[in-house]
């Protein structure tokens, strides 16, 4: 409704496409624009520019256009960004915009703002009414579906616990005179499990990302360790050029495969070694980015050759993650490195021995992979609820409020109540249930109030 922070959203549907469009609008656009692109906006000129996030990481090259209000779609300043149609890029740009002070747009908010600023005429106004209605019905249906099935089922016991606690705290404040027997509460003990459950739900945002965009699995290892052979085996065809010459893979290769319901993006990277070749150094640099950004690493080690320790010196590539799989390849050749080799034990990842030339080895590795991804919580159980970006925002708010509440004593009942209400309000935004009257009902049901 204007006045507050600008709102941002993707304007094109999710999924892979040539180009995706994102917009943000409202007051404060200009400041955000300048922060991202380090220059003043030039109205209505499409400009090609790199998009760097707050950490300075180059997310994509984009075409950006700045529209000044009131001559924009919404009637307020509006920025339109066209990036490559990769859901992951769109997601990361949106995340960055939220970090810079935008908030997620409400359904239909661009059009609604446009209407309210007089950008649409009367005939269109009727259409807007229909649109808003249709949107909210859809939102309602979505909310109801979630209540029936999944998110509601997860949230409603938590809401109920919080309502109970709030009722007790409120009774303690308003009626301690009349009902001195109100039970003594240990907030910590009561809130901690709720917060944990919410945090777990919040964690599924990553799952949603993985489910929608695929889990990135990078193959890394020394040159000629057999990464590309294994990668081809995964893909089921000879996509990568394979040769006995070390350094055959110069650039990374990325393909999507499906393992059961799960979507993996498997990435073959250039082998790592010390080199003076400028081109090879560059390709290794690009591989490094892929490896660091991947959700899971497969570290391929030639089990028939001498141990190449080059990778172990590049600790930044792998040591920040708790999970990965070591693969001893070329098991069809005489083995020189066993799975109990001290180096492998030191890394501490599970080890799989295979020959990439044996299809049954590839299959069992795939099975192991799914099991491992599930175990490491990188992909959800099939019945698990996944939250979306908007729901995650509210869950974060609730978790933050509960974390504060846990640190307070009941002597500060009014502050505990303020935090519990903040959490409940945030959860109510997700479930769509007003809690106003419920608290009083709970108080009167639970305590004998009244002199």
């Amino acid at each position, binding site marked *: 409704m204007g006045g507050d922070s600008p709102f941002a959203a993707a304007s094109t549907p999710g999924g892979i496409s040539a180009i995706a469009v994102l917009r943000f609008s409202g007051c404060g656009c200009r400041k955000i624009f300048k922060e991202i692109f380090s220059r003043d906006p030039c109205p209505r000129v499409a400009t090609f520019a790199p998009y760097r996030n707050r950490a300075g990481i180059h997310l994509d090259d984009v075409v950006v256009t700045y529209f000044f209000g009131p001559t924009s779609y919404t009637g307020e300043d509006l920025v339109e960004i066209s990036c490559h149609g990769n859901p992951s890029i769109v997601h990361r740009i949106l995340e960055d915009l939220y970090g810079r002070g935008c908030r997620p747009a409400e359904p239909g908010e661009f059009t609604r703002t446009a209407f309210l600023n007089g950008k649409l005429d009367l005939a269109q106004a009727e259409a807007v009414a229909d649109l808003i209605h249709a949107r909210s019905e859809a939102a309602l249906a979505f909310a109801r579906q979630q209540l029936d099935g999944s998110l509601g089922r997860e949230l409603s016991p938590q809401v109920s616990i919080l309502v109970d606690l709030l009722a007790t705290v409120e009774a303690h404040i*308003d009626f301690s005179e009349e009902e001195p027997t109100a039970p003594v509460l240990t907030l910590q003990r009561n809130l901690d499990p709720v917060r944990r459950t919410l945090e777990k739900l919040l964690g599924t945002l990553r799952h949603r990302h993985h489910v929608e965009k695929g889990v990135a699995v990078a193959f890394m290892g020394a040159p000629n360790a057999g990464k590309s052979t294994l990668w081809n085996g995964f893909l089921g065809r000879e996509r990568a050029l394979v040769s006995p010459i070390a350094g055959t893979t110069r650039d990374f290769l990325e393909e999507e495969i499906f393992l059961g319901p799960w979507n993996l993006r498997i990435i073959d990277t250039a082998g790592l070694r010390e080199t003076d070749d400028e081109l090879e150094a560059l390709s290794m640099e690009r591989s490094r980015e892929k490896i660091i950004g991947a959700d899971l690493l497969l570290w391929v080690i030639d089990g028939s050759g001498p141990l190449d320790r080059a990778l172990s010196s590049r600790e930044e590539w792998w040591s920040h993650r708790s999970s990965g799989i070591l693969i001893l390849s070329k098991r069809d050749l005489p083995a020189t490195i066993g799975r109990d080799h001290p180096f492998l034990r030191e890394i501490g990842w599970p080890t799989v021995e295979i020959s990439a030339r044996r299809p049954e080895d590839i299959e069992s590795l795939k099975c192991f992979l799914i099991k491992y991804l599930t175990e490491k919580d990188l992909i959800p159980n099939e019945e698990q609820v996944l939250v979306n970006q908007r729901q995650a925002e509210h869950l974060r708010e609730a978790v933050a409020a509960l974390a504060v509440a846990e640190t307070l004593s009941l002597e500060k009942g*009014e502050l505990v109540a303020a935090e519990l209400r903040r959490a409940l309000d945030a959860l109510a935004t997700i479930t769509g249930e007003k809690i106003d009257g419920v608290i009083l009902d709970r108080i009167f049901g639970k305590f*004998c109030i009244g002199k």
Partner: protein
Amino acid sequence: MVAAGKVWEVLVVGGGHAGCEAANICAGKGLETLLLTGNLDTIARMSCNPAIGGLGKGHMVREIDALGGLMAENADATALQFRLLNRSKGAAVRGPRAQCDRHLYALRMKWTLERMEYLTLFQDIAEEILVEDCHAVGVRTQLGLELRAAVTILTTGTFLRGRLHIGEKQMDGGRLGDFSAGDLAASLNRHGISTGRMKTGTPPRLSGNSIDFSPMERQDGDGKISHFAFYDTREPGEEKNFKMLPEPIVVRPEDQRPCFIAATSKCTRAIVEANLHRSPLYSGSISGRGPRYCPSIEDKFVKFPDHPTHRLFLEPEGISTDEWYVNGLSTSLPLSVQEDLIHSIEGLGRAKILRPAYAVEYDYAPPTQLFPTLESKIVPNLFCAGQINGTSGYEEAAVQGLLAGINAAAKLMNRESLVLGRHEAYAGVLIDDLVTKGTEEPYRMFTGRAEYRLLLNAGGAELRLLGAAESHGLLGQGRLGRIRKKLRRVEEGVDFLERERAPEGGTLGNRLRVHGEGVVAELRSALGMVSDAEWEEIFYRVSYAGYLERERRTIDRLGAMDAVPIPENMDYAAIRGLRTESRQKLAAIRPRTLGQAGRISGVGAADVGLVRVAMEAQSRREMKHAEVEKFPPVKI
């Protein structure tokens, strides 16, 4: 004069807590005001317990004082005992409360009103409201008088079709020993104002010399007296008639009178259970809805079977009487059972009942029929305040009477009305709840009803409501000046603490938030000369700074919606896409702003969005129309 057919500016019907405040504020503005009461001796009568204030309620009494009302001073002057409830909790939820002398409270209020220049008191009973051209023009009385006035304020309490129950015995009346105003309710109905039924009850009164207090727990007043009224911003002598009595009953803490706490026994429970069928509540002869927060002893035992005993509070009714009020023993059981009940309680074995407990059923007019000014949407120039609006409690009634009076006066004087926000006052919460959501049971205020509770500390009422008092001329210039000065000193004090560095790093404000009470003396001396009241508020604002800031941000976010007015002629039937339930509620309540629309139960965000779109469309249509008239198309 009354009989001479004079047209009054304001007619107040009813002399209870609401009526007194309404009459005082209107007459204080120089409006010719008539206060009509069925019995002059029961003006400002405390029909239930002899106490004022409490949590939420005490806050409202402070607000009444900040808005030029009478209740605070009257309670201070006639109090027998002062207690600040929730003293161990944060200042936001501390509420002042006082036991008062029932008779002196009423006497002093009557005495005050009798001496007001533009106020006339008259004893008669209103039987019919007079309506001409759909507007209220006064009332017809039992004596056959037609009392005509520009605005009429109804504060009829429990008297509309009042019916009393003591066991199987029933009689008409709004209070034991008083009449019932049956005809007036019918007259409201005839003019399109609908009414519903409510119920409340009151416990027996005992003779003090028949009570053995020795086995009971004694409850004394506080060592430090917390008055309701803000005396630090009054000049000595500026109080209204503080000098009627030689001096207030309680001047020093040791002047206070104690209360006593007793408990029900096993025997009490057995008596209630054996006689449940004789209680009109359980035999079905009472249909009105009673308050859940003030259950009868029957309800307590039935609904909470796990509670072995319930506490009872024995409160003195005054220094001029030896009657004692048994708080917690409200019942409508027959008198013989009441005697058995009383005698089953330790210390009350030989106690004599002076007045029996009874339940009262009465009509109320659902308050969703009112604008937030408390003026009727159905009959203009008619205002309603107090129990007729479905509330309970002296403080709830008084604050409504005050605001109805302010708004009635504003209407007569062509001034802007006063509608307090939910973030400004408990009075704002109360009235917004009433006119937006209505109420199914007698509405009592709790601090928990206010979503911005932390902004509404009792100590800050005067500073918070300064703007309202100024714009509506509710306080004298002298006092307004002193409140402005207090506000300035508080703000400077807060700025100082948030600016000055502490020895350990950070600001003095941080030091206060970390160490709390432990560093009060040190920081207060750093501030220089500040009064106790100023320091109390500075301490509050600094120690709650983060929370207050967050609540203000929320208000800014949601307040935008409260700033968008909905045209009074909004046609909800014409809005496409509204759900039927929302359409009906919106049409019935006719919210004034989008914010209010959103608070109606059952009206969702999508509905509010549709209303907003329709409003825009309507105003654009009107604008276009106006433009066409201004610049008619020219043929070339």
